[in-house]
């Protein structure tokens, strides 16, 4: 059995995909993994809309491009994006990356991803943990996809604003009432057409973990 930590640490967000289809049995495993995510009081509020249709994925891709692009254009105009990417030394490369971001192209990849899975949660069954349960399901999906050699990405952009979330629901025929279903993200799944730098830089555990009390960085002896 593969060490689960290897699966977790080697996973990366994939935003470029080959056009090859994802077999049903692999997709079913991704969905099955989602079904087994932790869920408060076993409410299982998640629902999934699996999309392979190109026209629908184009609409989602366009919505994502406008959503991300509208925010990143403003952030660029305010100087925030330049600060964020100041670490890229080559000015031409930095400008190219920034254009990719503020144009919204960065979020358009639903068009190329063979499968898009909208992750939504019912708000009508009493669960008090809907966003958290859905997030746990998404993580399971990404890990299962990766464990099978597929790539995936968790995408919040096209549903980040209330108005865009409504548009997203309309594309997929999800009831749009604010008291009905919450759409938290979509997950793209497919065969990776990119090899991202591995491992991505991560903060050290020492910078993240406190012992017994917040702020206490000294690990106490025990036993």
């Amino acid at each position, binding site marked *: 059995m593969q060490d689960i930590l290897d699966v977790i640490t080697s996973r990366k967000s994939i935003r470029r995909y080959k056009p090859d289809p994802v077999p049903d049995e692999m997709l079913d495993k991704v969905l099955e993994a989602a079904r087994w995510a932790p869920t408060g009081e076993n409410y299982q509020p998640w629902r999934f809309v699996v999309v392979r249709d190109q026209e629908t994925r184009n609409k989602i891709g366009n919505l994502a*491009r*406008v959503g991300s692009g*509208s925010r990143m254009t403003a952030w660029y*105009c305010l100087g925030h994006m330049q600060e964020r990417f100041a670490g890229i030394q080559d000015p031409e490369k930095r400008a190219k990356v920034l254009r990719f971001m*503020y144009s919204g192209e960065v979020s358009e990849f639903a068009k190329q991803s063979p499968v898009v899975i909208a992750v939504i949660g019912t708000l009508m069954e009493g669960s008090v943990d809907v966003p958290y349960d859905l997030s746990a399901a998404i993580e399971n999906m990404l890990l299962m996809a990766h464990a099978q050699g597929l790539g995936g990405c968790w995408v919040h952009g096209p549903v980040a604003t209330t108005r865009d979330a409504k548009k997203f629901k309309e594309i997929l025929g999800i009831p749009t009432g604010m008291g009905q279903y919450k759409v938290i993200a979509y997950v793209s799944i497919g065969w990776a057409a990119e090899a991202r730098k591995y491992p991505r830089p991560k903060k050290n555990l020492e910078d993240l973990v406190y012992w017994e009390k917040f702020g206490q960085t000294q690990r106490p002896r025990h036993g």
Partner: protein
Amino acid sequence: MDSNVLLNQMLYRMEEVFWHELSDCAPWKTEYVGIDFIQSQDIKGATEDEVIRSCIDRIKAVGLAQEVDFSITGNDILLKLQVRDCQLMLKETLLRKGGIKPYSCPLANMIRDQLIEKLGYETTYLADMAADEKTGCCDLKVAIYATPEKIGAVSDWSKA
């Protein structure tokens, strides 16, 4: 108790918990706050200038703010608003005292909504909000995109 103080205190608590739950995403989720009023006002206009002026007239008429000035610049995607003596300044003051930068403006939401509803704008985004309780002024930068092609029309807004 002054009903406006009560309203501000309630909005403050709502926005405080929203921020706590959603952090920087909170402004994106609150863009509908205020739109019911403006949608009931039969705003008319064929241009952005006319629609925005009509919204401001209604906002002033009901006493939400004493004065609202605006200009459109930055490749036509930057709507600058300056609101003076806003009835909601107290909630911004309370938020700031609680360590949260004010992030939601119902008045801006009203104008954004009508640009979309009346002129078919593609999308809008409240990019910056600087409320100053000492001067009674609030300066807002709103990104307004008439068409998808306006996404990416970048410029330096510090010079706009």
